[in-house]
C-alpha cells in the first residue's frame, strides 16, 4: 500500500503522465476531427509511424526541431488527402481504406528509414526538445517538476485541445463540421459543401496525427525504430469513443489513460513476482473495457462511415 502512495505522490509520475499523454492527445484530436465530419480514419497508426520517421529524419539531416514537427504534419496531411480521395471522393469502405493507408504509410516509412539509415549497431539519435522552464511556476515544489517541466509540444497539445473544443462548438466552421458528420444532405441544403468539409477535417486531423508521431521521436525519445508506435493510434481511436467525440473530454481521457500507463510502468519495478507482460497488457485491456462501458451511452455522429455522393441517396 505504501509503495502505491509513494508512486502517486512522486512528481516523476505526473511528469510522465503529461509526456505519455501528449502523442495520444494529438492522435485523438486528429481522429476526432475527422469522425465529427463523418470519416473514420484508421490510417492513424501508419500516419503516426510516418510522422515519427519523417520528423526524426528531417531533424537528423540538420533541420530544426520545429521544422521536423511541421514536415511530419505536412506528410500526415498528405496521407489524410489520400484517405479522403478513397473514402470521400470514391466513397469506399472507411474501414478497409484506413487499414490500407496504415499498411502503406508504415511500410513506406520503414522503407525510407532503411534507405536513409543503413543498418548499424546503435540507432542514430538527434538532440530532442528540451523542457521549457516557466519562470516562477517551474520552481514551485512538486507542482513545478510535475507539470511545468515539459517540452513545448506538450503545452501545444493542451492548447490545441482547448482550441479544437472552441472551434467545434463555438464557430461556424465547427457547426459545418458537425452538420456534415450528422447529416451531409441537410448540410448541403444549408449551403455547406460536405465533400469540402470532410476533406478539410480529415486532412487537418491527419496533420495532427503526424505531429503526434513526431513527438515520439523528437521529444519522448530521440531515435526512430520500426513498430515504435506500438498501437498508440488504435488506442486513440478508442479514446475518441471514450471522449464522446468532445475535445475537452479527449484531453481528459488521454491524461487518464496516460496516468494508468505511467502507474503500471512504476508498478513493474515496485512489485515483484508478477510477469511484466501483465502490466504491459493493461493499457490495451483498459481501452477495451472503456469502449464496452461507454459505447452505449455515447452519441455517435450519425453519418459516421457513411459515404456521401452528391445526388445519390
Amino acid at each position, binding site marked *: 500500500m505504501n509503495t502505491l502512495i509513494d508512486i502517486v505522490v512522486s512528481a516523476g509520475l505526473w511528469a510522465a503522465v503529461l509526456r505519455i499523454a501528449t502523442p495520444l492527445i494529438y492522435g485523438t484530436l486528429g481522429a476526432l476531427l475527422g469522425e465529427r465530419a463523418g470519416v473514420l480514419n484508421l490510417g492513424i497508426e501508419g500516419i503516426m509511424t510516418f510522422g515519427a520517421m519523417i520528423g526524426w529524419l528531417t531533424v537528423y539531416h540538420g533541420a530544426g526541431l520545429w521544422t521536423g514537427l511541421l514536415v511530419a504534419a505536412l506528410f500526415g496531411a498528405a496521407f489524410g488527402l489520400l484517405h479522403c480521395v478513397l473514402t470521400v471522393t470514391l466513397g469506399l469502405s472507411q474501414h478497409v481504406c484506413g487499414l*490500407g493507408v496504415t499498411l*502503406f504509410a508504415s511500410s*513506406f516509412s520503414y522503407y525510407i528509414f532503411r534507405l536513409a539509415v543503413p543498418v548499424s549497431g546503435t540507432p542514430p539519435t538527434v538532440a530532442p526538445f528540451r523542457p521549457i522552464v516557466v519562470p516562477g511556476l517551474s520552481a514551485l515544489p512538486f507542482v513545478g517538476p510535475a507539470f511545468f517541466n515539459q517540452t513545448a509540444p506538450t503545452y501545444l497539445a493542451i492548447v490545441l485541445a482547448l482550441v479544437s473544443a472552441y472551434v467545434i462548438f463555438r464557430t461556424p466552421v465547427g457547426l459545418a463540421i458537425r452538420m456534415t458528420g450528422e447529416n451531409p444532405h441537410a448540410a448541403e441544403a444549408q449551403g455547406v459543401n460536405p465533400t469540402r468539409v470532410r476533406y478539410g477535417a480529415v486532412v487537418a486531423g491527419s496533420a495532427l496525427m503526424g505531429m503526434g508521431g513526431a513527438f515520439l521521436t523528437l521529444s519522448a525519445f530521440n531515435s526512430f525504430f520500426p513498430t515504435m508506435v506500438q*498501437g498508440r493510434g488504435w488506442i486513440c481511436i478508442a479514446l475518441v469513443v471514450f471522449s464522446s467525440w468532445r475535445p475537452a473530454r479527449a484531453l481528459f481521457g488521454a491524461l487518464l489513460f496516460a496516468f494508468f500507463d505511467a502507474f503500471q510502468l512504476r508498478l513493474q519495478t515496485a512489485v515483484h513476482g508478477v510477469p511484466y507482460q501483465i502490466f504491459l497488457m493493461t493499457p490495451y485491456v483498459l481501452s*477495451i473495457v472503456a469502449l464496452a*462501458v461507454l*459505447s452505449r451511452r455515447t452519441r455517435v455522429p450519425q453519418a459516421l462511415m457513411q459515404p456521401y455522393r452528391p445526388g445519390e441517396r
Partner: protein
Amino acid sequence: MRFERRENRSLYLMALAPALAVVAALALAGILIAIAGASPLEAYWRILIGAFGSRLAATETLTRATPLILTGLSAAVAFRARLWNIGAEGQFYIGAIAVAAFGSRALAALPAPLLIPLLLAIGAAAGMAMLLGPLWLRLRFSVDEVVTSLLLNFIAVLFVSMLIDGVLKDPAAFGWPQSRPVVDQAMLPKLIAHSRLHIGFVIAVVLAVVVHFIQSRTVFGMRSRAVGLNPQGAVFAGVRLAPTLVKVACLSGGLAGLAGAIEVMGVKGYVTTDLSPGFGYTGIVVAMLANLNPLGVVFSAIFTAAMFVGADGMSRGLRIPTYIADVTVALSLLTMLIALFFIQYRLRR
C-alpha cells in the same frame, strides 16, 4: 465530372481488375526502387527469380503462402458478412501457442494420426475463442469490433510472450524466450523431400475450396453474404443476425487460429514472438486482392508470398530494403480498392 453507377458490370472488367491493380502497384513501387538507385525491371526480375527460379525457391514461396491462404480466407469470410475481424494476427498467435502447450506435453503420448487432427482442432478452437470476445462486445454493447479485435492483437502477443517466458519456456533454449517444441510426431509430414513445404499447403488449398462451397452452395453461406450486403434487409427476410455472425466468427477466427497451428506444426515446431511477420494483417490484403473470393485467395496469397520471398534475394543483390515487398503489397491493396470502384462506377463529364 461525376461518377455514374454502371448498369451492368462486365465480367471482362472484373477479371481484369486485379491484374491492373497489381500492375499499377508494381509501377508505383518501381518509382521507389528507381529513387533508391536501382532499375525497377531488374529488381522485379530478381524478385521473380528469387520466388520461383528454382525448386527450392518455389517450395519456399508456397510454404510462405500457406499461412497467408488461411489468414486471407479468415478475412474474406468475415468481411463478406461485414464482420471486421482485424484480429487475425492475435488469433494466429493464440492458435500457435495452444498447439505448443498441448503438443509439447499434455497430448504428447498420442500417435500421429490422432495427435495431428486433434492439435489442428485445438488451434482452430483457440482462434475462434479469440474472435467471439469482440463479437460479443459488438452484439451486447455495440462496440465496433475493428478496434477491439485490433487491440486484442497486442494483448495476444504479450500473453504469448508471458507464456514462453514462463510456464511454456523451453529450458533447452539457452535462456531465449521460446516455447517447448511440439513432439516429433506432431509435425506435419513434408510434401516434398528436402524442402520446408509441408502438407499444410494442401490443407489450406482444400479449405479454400470448402469455404468457397460453403459460401456459394449452403444456406449459411447465403445468410452470411446477405448479412454483409444489407443487414436490415437480411433481418427483415428472416435471417437471425446474432447466430449467423457467431458462425461467421467461428469460421473466421478458426481459420486464423489454424494458420498459427499449421505454422508451428509445419515449419517451426515451437513458438516465438516473431513467429508471424504480420501474417494476420497481410491476410487482409490477400483477401481484398482476391475481391473476397475464397478461390482467388489462393492465388493472391501466392502472389503476396512471392513478393516477400523474392524481395529477400533481390535485397541482398541490389541493396534495396526488403520493406519494398511490404510497400508493394500495401499499394496493391489501395490500387485494388480503386479498381473495384471502377468496376461499379464510370466517370462521366
